[in-house]
């Protein structure tokens, strides 16, 4: 299997390859020599399983994400679909901003809000929501959002965690794309429409988190 390295992070390497003729991404987590081998194995296994589970849960909840091809705990690899003809929402937003395309920016924000609302109403916490972890396929009206990188995801129904998820996105969104406060508000508004039961609590938490930051203060 020929692999081309495309990205390297703190936890693993991302390769582009082919899996029986289908374009795929191989995500390999490396061993960390500073950890005890037993702990290292258990952590890696846990995270790989969490990622596979999240991909399946999302798919079943009607949220688009890459198809899973293979999970190999022994070799620390997850093989999944490589989404062709797509760009990250980060790049897409940049392009739209350069063109000053307010109409498509608005529909993009609505789409993001819709996907996130659905994600959270199914109690899936992504854990690392940024515009780089969302892909967009197509352009304008016909585009679809595909969520990627579920390495930090988990399932929880607590409003706090959902609030943190949105807060992380807000920080990432506003720092990568300046002057988009109004746009982010659109994301939140559509989010509310798509997560009717929980949105109110999450919004309250979000306010709270904005005041204190992502981490809870540890006093007492």
């Amino acid at each position, binding site marked *: 299997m020929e692999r081309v390295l495309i990205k390297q992070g703190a936890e693993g390497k991302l390769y582009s390859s082919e899996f*029986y003729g289908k374009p795929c991404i191989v995500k390999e987590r490396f061993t960390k020599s500073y950890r005890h081998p037993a702990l290292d194995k258990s952590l890696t296994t846990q995270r790989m399983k969490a990622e596979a589970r999240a991909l399946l849960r999302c798919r079943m909840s009607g949220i688009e994400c890459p198809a899973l091809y293979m999970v*190999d705990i022994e070799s620390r690899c997850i093989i999944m679909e490589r989404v062709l003809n797509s760009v990250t929402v980060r790049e897409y937003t940049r392009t739209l901003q350069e063109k000053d395309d307010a109409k498509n920016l608005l529909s993009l924000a609505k789409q993001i809000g819709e996907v996130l609302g659905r994600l959270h109403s199914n109690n899936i916490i992504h854990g690392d929501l940024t515009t780089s972890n969302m892909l967009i396929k197509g352009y304008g009206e016909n585009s679809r959002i595909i969520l990627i990188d579920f390495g930090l995801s988990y399932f929880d129904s607590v409003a706090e965690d959902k609030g943190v998820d949105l807060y992380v996105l807000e920080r990432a969104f506003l720092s990568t794309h300046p002057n988009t406060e109004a746009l982010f508000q659109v994301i939140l508004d559509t989010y509310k429409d798509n997560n009717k039961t929980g949105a109110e609590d999450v919004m309250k938490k979000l306010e709270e988190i904005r005041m204190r930051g992502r981490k809870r203060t540890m006093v007492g």
Partner: protein
Amino acid sequence: MAAEVIANELFPDSTITLALFRNVENVKEIRQCVMNGTFEAAILKTSMIVDPFQVIVAANKAVVHQNKVGKMMTKNVHSEILFNLSPSKNISDSFRKFGAGDTDQSVFIAVIDDKTGQTLQAIQNTVKGQQVDVDEVKQLSDLNNIKKIYKLTDAELSWSPLDALVTRIAAKDIMTI
């Protein structure tokens, strides 16, 4: 129409052979041959397969598990393919739902490590039917039944049933629906 022989991506020495037969009259006989050991192969129900890739993913997983001691859930690599295809953890239930039935008129065959082509030859000699391109399995799949057995949602069905199935097959030992 020739069968498709595919080299395993992770274990290059291993191969997967796929073949599809239509208008088959003697599924019962073929199954008997597998059961009494005349040849070793996975005899699959065509109505449960949407694309050859689905079988490849299941077979690939079976081979990887075979090469790692203690990973296999069933007796041999061919029955493991059937088991991997199925969303159920019940082995005999998996065989019943994903193995070809006696009255089926088509069979999808997967053979692991048939390097000399001997097994395929033996199968071709046994099957009373017409061998066709493996891609024709797309015409034979029964989406309603697939949807029911794999518990697919309507959204999944509308994008790509194949992606939904391979995701389930790949994640089977991690999470059951």
